[in-house]
């Protein structure tokens, strides 16, 4: 049963990866647009507490938390179920904002590190999506929003591990979106460019860098339009088109020039 409205503004929300900067910015914006019940899932209790306080300050009336470890995809489904149960009613929106950038120069020679990066960025979200899909289809309504990345568009030397994991998730989501036609459930992804956050601290800022609040703003627009693929900022749609079609030689010179 939906509680979301004509502009895709939800009332009951689950955020997986709820303590990330982008997730917190989205939570605040959703509160301002009438969301009231939140379940924030994350790995760090004290960070979740901060995110909870944000939400309450912005008008949420009920905020619960669930702890999980994105390196353990075996438990992804159980985490999703726990979050849905804590909502205690229909879930309008599930945001997946789970991610790990890693340090490629040290990660790329370690099987464990590579496994961790792929697991957190792709395997865990993929497993969670399977359970979310099942629960929302049974509910007959609801919406999934996945934070993808412009990195998913084309892999580059300096971040190929992160890029390829995001690409996997991104492509899975576009397929999932098609599979949901006629079920009453919507799947949307947003592909932000470089975002100034805890995760990206210390890295050089490429053009079209935004803050987390801007991403949240474009998420709200995406919810209103219902488009499957969305960009933050929107101009990246065209930038990405160019990136995708550049000859490899030129792409490498541009993409890896600064790293």
């Amino acid at each position: 049963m939906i509680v979301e409205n004509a502009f895709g503004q939800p009332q009951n929300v689950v955020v997986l990866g709820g303590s990330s900067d982008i997730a917190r910015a989205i939570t605040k914006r959703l509160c301002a647009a009438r969301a009231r019940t939140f379940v924030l899932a994350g790995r760090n209790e004290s960070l979740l507490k901060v995110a909870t306080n944000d939400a309450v300050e912005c008008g949420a009336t009920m905020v619960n938390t669930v702890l999980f470890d994105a390196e353990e995809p075996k438990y992804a489904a159980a985490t999703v179920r726990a979050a849905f149960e804590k909502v205690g009613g229909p879930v309008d929106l599930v945001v997946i904002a789970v991610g790990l950038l890693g340090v490629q120069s040290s990660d790329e020679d370690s099987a464990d590190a590579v496994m961790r990066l792929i697991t957190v960025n792709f395997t865990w979200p993929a497993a969670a999506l399977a359970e979310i899909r099942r629960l929302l289809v049974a509910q007959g309504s609801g919406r999934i929003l996945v934070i993808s990345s412009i990195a998913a568009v084309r892999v580059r030397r300096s971040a190929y591990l992160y890029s390829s994991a995001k690409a996997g998730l991104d492509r899975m989501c576009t397929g999932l979106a098609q599979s949901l036609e006629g079920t009453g459930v919507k799947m949307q992804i947003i592909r932000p460019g470089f975002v100034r956050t805890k995760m990206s601290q210390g890295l050089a800022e490429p053009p079209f860098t935004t803050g987390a609040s801007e991403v949240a703003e474009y998420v709200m627009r995406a919810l209103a339009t219902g488009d499957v693929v969305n960009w933050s900022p929107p101009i990246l749609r065209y930038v990405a088109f160019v990136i995708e079609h550049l000859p490899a030689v030129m792409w490498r010179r541009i993409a890896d020039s600064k790293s």
Partner: protein
Amino acid sequence: MTETLIGWGRRTPAVATVRVLRSENDVARELASGEAMIARGLGRSYGDAAQLSGGVVLANRGLSHIGPIVEGTVTVGAGASIDELLARTMPQGWFVPVTPGTRYVTIGGAVAADVHGKNHHVDGSFANHVRSMRLVTPEGPFQLSPHDEPELFWATMGAMGLTGVVTSVELNLTRVETNQMVVDTDRFGDLESVMAEMRLRDRDYRYSVAWVDCMSPGTALGRAILTRARHAVTNDIERPRLDSPGSGRLAIPFRAPSGALNACSVRSFNELWYRRAPRREVGAIVPLGAFFHPLDGVRNWNLLYGKRGFVQYQFCVPEEHEDAIALVIERLARSKVPSFLAVLKRFGSANRAPLSFPLAGWTLALDLPVGSQRLPTLLDELDEIVVQAHGRVYFAKDSRLRPEYVPLMYPRLAEFLNVKSRVDPHTQLKSDLARRLGLVGG
């Protein structure tokens, strides 16, 4: 059967199990299952009122029996449309007492929304003309009238189907001599003058409505076309006829591209519409259908709004806070959100129904294509103006109101909830709208 249902604004689809009703017994049997459900007619409510995602939706169109007309009243199945009813009653010289802007609503839907028409200032809303009706609730069937079970009767009017399923309605009809209208049209250069005229002379006409331009710049803001009418009598016309409004209808063959309706194209349309109207015209003879249901000539005009669909925003404010009308129009114009000619109308007295929309004063209805990023916040701001003016928005049109505003806009909500808990103690009757607005629990 599982189906995807959507409101007329095409914004919030819902997947639900649809079951077709053929008799009152069917309703009782469905309710006995204990599942959550809501009735649905022709799906003309704009938002999510006639759907329940993940639940059961009872299609009422099979309850379409229309009885004989006895002394100006007719007993009609809740699933019959006003169009079908008129096809039966017009040849005998009877018109419906109240019709909304479309004939394609069911009688059950007319009760659920307590619909109003261009004659509200004289005749009130649909409920005022219902002699009695059958309502099936989880606690059994009721025969309701203003005298038998008056509380439940009034609580059902405008309650969006949340007290039970209406199966049939005994309705008072209006005598007419022809199927034509005598229409006076006047153009006004600004909002103030059209409102003054309506305040002064609306009473002289049974039907009255104004189209207001909410996008024209500067002093032309709120310029309006006022049309007022009465039913034509035999003497008005050479060859009077009584057939019902024809059903020769065009169809939009495909969905228009999103964005076709933008600030620029809508402003041009409004300009043309305004210029097309005569400055003053008296006594024009116009067919019933063209006067009451101008959009019914195009079967699925809602597709003109493209993939993104549209929202309708209709509110009313009491007489003493009529300034809110101008304030809303000014705020809308400043936001540059495209809006088609808005419909302005004066309401007569409210009836006794706690959730009925109309209250003595003014109502304004706006059609707004979805797409402008400013629209969601703009409408939230308009809500605030409306609440401060002690007004309310219309549930049948709504798809985005904040739930906190419902008790402020409908201060008699508790009365409705009391009656509902009596006939539906386990809250079996619910809709997406009811859930979204907190009209029912979990």
